[in-house]
């Protein structure tokens, strides 16, 4: 095979750059690699496991930063624009892996690469300029210290390519904020786990890409027909229509109605004046446009513009989605939509994960309320819930690690160690990562996801329980094709729920690694399972079945567990946060829904069993590792 050999949808080729010595090289993947691993997080884990020693410092040159496309990424089909950033996490000490959509992943494909591996550390700030089959390392001296937008503009001007796609860190990544993120096109993020800090630790400001190679597709006519039909019909499906109309912002309305909108560091479930953050208000007052990702017609991303009093919000940074509306809104007690839109813009400009950022701030306010922190700790600032001015100031301080911002930049778990005095009881984390904005008492399958997730608490481990509560729905009909047989109510936790979760979590992982979007495909998205299969076959030429794809998802989950246990994680890290063992405090479920920890762990253990893991230590059995063809990682 030559370096120019192409497969349907991918090149079998990776670009490797060493920032310590300034070298680069192109490597070919073994035949069959992509069909086995599918790309994304699994591709990254393969190299992370092989090429990094256990227990390295995540912010040292020994860590790798791997930017890996899925096998489908870049093909002109709906909802397949995604790539994964992979490294060891400075937030959790385990796997860092976070997917992003947009246009950057496809552009890397058009330059002739499935993935980019960055090694070492540059002596001075640099950025990478990747074009067809090659890369240059360029000085970033003049843009170090800039936020995402001015830095991106400067790079595009310097390379003379207005349409270069730029993956970038802001000041937060440079300053090693433990939850700094990577952004592309200012509105798409590898948000979680502190991957921006890893990039910053390498003195790497950005990776700009422009390619013009034609990605081969095995059956372009079929792909074209699938894309055309999807664009025409996705809004006929209520799930697709809602994603277009409201994106994820409808979550604020739905969660608050259930008394399950995280408010004031999760002390409450209903935000006073929370109606101001509702999706209808959002659409009326600040929404000016919708944006999408490469080749996807759904356009679930928001664009907002605000000029009100002292506050202006730049539309180029997109608009807040549900997680941000809650994390930087209700969870810090702020009910002013304009302030939350500004907080979102600042988080994107400085490059920080809005979930962990909001949770770090809410935790600090809670500690202040409980007198575990005082003005002596905060540099004279009085902290309180509902204070928008304080919120915006703390975001700036965190990005620069200025004064008390240096504490906030550590995230809840390390903040609690620093603050001491029993403050740990106000943290809500799993494996050191702050929980997202979904109350697992109202959807217990998401709770299993939080607890067993490889990257710390995460809400995208599997489609949520609400889609599998009745059997005569379109979503459940689609889920049957994956192997689900029996619906379970959202609040229930049963062996059947654990069984369903095994299947849908393998499916979700498969979508992640192949380049698919959580919102694109049934049961959570509007594309039926059979159409998805036809699309994969049309792009790759693989005569693939659902069983093979689910096994690839399983392989990815097992690889993660092998990595995390190598880094010192154990069953004890699959812990349910105490918060969810308490009853709901407001709304229609007030006084109910507390999760019994022992019972929860029984079903967690059942999940291990069904996954082919040992229930004693929550580690895959040797037999299962062999069945997945992962003997070399035994």
């Amino acid at each position, binding site marked *: 095979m030559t370096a120019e050999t192409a497969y349907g949808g991918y090149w079998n080729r990776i670009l490797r750059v060493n920032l310590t010595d300034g070298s680069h090289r192109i490597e070919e993947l073994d035949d069959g690699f992509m069909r086995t691993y599918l790309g994304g997080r699994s591709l990254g884990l393969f190299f992370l496991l092989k090429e990094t020693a256990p227990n390295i410092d995540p912010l040292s040159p020994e860590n790798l930063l791997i930017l890996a496309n899925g096998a489908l990424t870049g093909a002109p089909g709906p909802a397949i624009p995604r790539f994964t950033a992979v490294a060891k996490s400075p937030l959790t000490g385990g796997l860092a892996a976070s997917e992003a959509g947009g246009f950057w992943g496809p552009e890397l494909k058009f330059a002739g690469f499935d993935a980019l591996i960055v090694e070492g550390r540059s002596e001075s700030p640099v950025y990478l300029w990747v074009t067809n089959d090659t890369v240059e390392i360029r000085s970033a001296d003049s843009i170090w210290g800039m936020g995402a937008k001015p830095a991106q503009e400067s790079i595009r001007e310097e390379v003379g390519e207005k349409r270069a796609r730029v993956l970038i860190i802001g000041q937060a990544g440079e300053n090693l904020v433990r939850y700094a993120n990577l952004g592309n096109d200012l509105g798409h993020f590898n948000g979680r786990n502190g991957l921006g800090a890893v990039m910053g630790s390498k003195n790497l400001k950005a990776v700009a890409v422009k390619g013009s190679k034609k990605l081969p597709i095995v059956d372009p006519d079929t792909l074209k027909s699938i894309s055309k039909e999807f664009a025409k019909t996705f809004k006929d499906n*209520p*799930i697709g229509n*809602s994603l277009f*109309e*409201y994106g*994820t912002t*409808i*979550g604020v*309305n*739905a*969660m608050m*109605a*259930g008394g399950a909108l995280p408010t004031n560091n999760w002390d409450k479930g209903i935000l006073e004046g929370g109606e101001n953050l*509702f*999706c*209808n208000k959002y659409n009326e007052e600040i929404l000016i446009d919708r944006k999408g990702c490469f080749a996807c017609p759904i356009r*679930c991303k928001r664009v907002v513009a605000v000029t009100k009093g002292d506050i202006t919000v730049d539309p180029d940074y997109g608009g807040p*989605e*549900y*997680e941000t509306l809650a994390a930087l809104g209700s969870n810090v007690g702020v009910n002013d939509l304009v302030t939350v839109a500004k907080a979102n813009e600042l988080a994107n400009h400085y490059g920080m994960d809005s979930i962990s950022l909001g949770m770090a701030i809410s935790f600090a306010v809670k500690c202040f309320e409980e007198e575990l922190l005082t003005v002596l700790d905060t540099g004279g600032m009085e902290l309180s819930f509902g204070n928008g001015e304080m919120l915006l100031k703390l975001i700036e301080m965190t990005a620069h690690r200025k004064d008390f911002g240096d504490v906030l930049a550590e995230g809840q778990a390390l903040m609690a160690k620093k603050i001491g005095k029993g403050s740990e009881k106000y943290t809500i984390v799993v494996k050191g990562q702050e929980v997202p904005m*979904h109350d697992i008492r109202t959807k217990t399958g*998401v709770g299993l996801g939080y607890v067993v997730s490889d990257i710390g608490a995460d*809400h*995208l481990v599997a*489609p*949520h*329980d*609400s*889609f599998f*509560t*009745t059997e*005569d*729905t*379109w*979503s459940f009909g689609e889920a049957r094709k994956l192997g689900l047989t029996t*619906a379970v*109510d*959202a*609040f229930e936790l049963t062996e059947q729920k654990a069984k369903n979760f095994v299947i849908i979590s393998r499916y979700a992982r498969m979508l992640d690694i192949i380049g698919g979007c*959580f*919102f694109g495909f049934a049961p*959570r998205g509007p594309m039926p399972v059979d159409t998805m299969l036809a699309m994969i076959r049309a792009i790759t030429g693989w005569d693939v079945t659902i069983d093979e794809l689910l096994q690839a998802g399983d392989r990815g989950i097992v690889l993660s567990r092998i990595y995390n246990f190598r880094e010192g994680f154990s069953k004890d890290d699959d812990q349910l946060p105490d918060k969810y063992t308490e009853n709901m405090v407001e709304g*229609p*479920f007030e006084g109910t829904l507390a999760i019994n920890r022992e019972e929860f762990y029984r079903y967690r253990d059942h999940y291990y069993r069904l996954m082919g893991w040992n229930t004693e230590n929550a580690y895959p059995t040797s037999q299962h590792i062999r069945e997945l063809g992962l003997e070399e990682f035994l």
Partner: protein
Amino acid sequence: MVTIRLAVGLRHHSDGKEEVWVEAGGFDAVVKKLRIAHDEMGMVLVNDRPVDSRERRELILNDDDVVDIYPIFGGG
């Protein structure tokens, strides 16, 4: 009559209206008449009491009942 209050995201079933009134009867029949699929529904409250997905199947709505229906939301 039964009052059905539809949350934002479901009002395309009611010409944009927040409330509609329907004859008393089985919950399934009522939502079918409004052309609301079970896929679309998240939380349902009847007289402020949550009604889970299984209970809905057997539920009979009586005159003066007030039903709140919220759209499904699942992550992201």
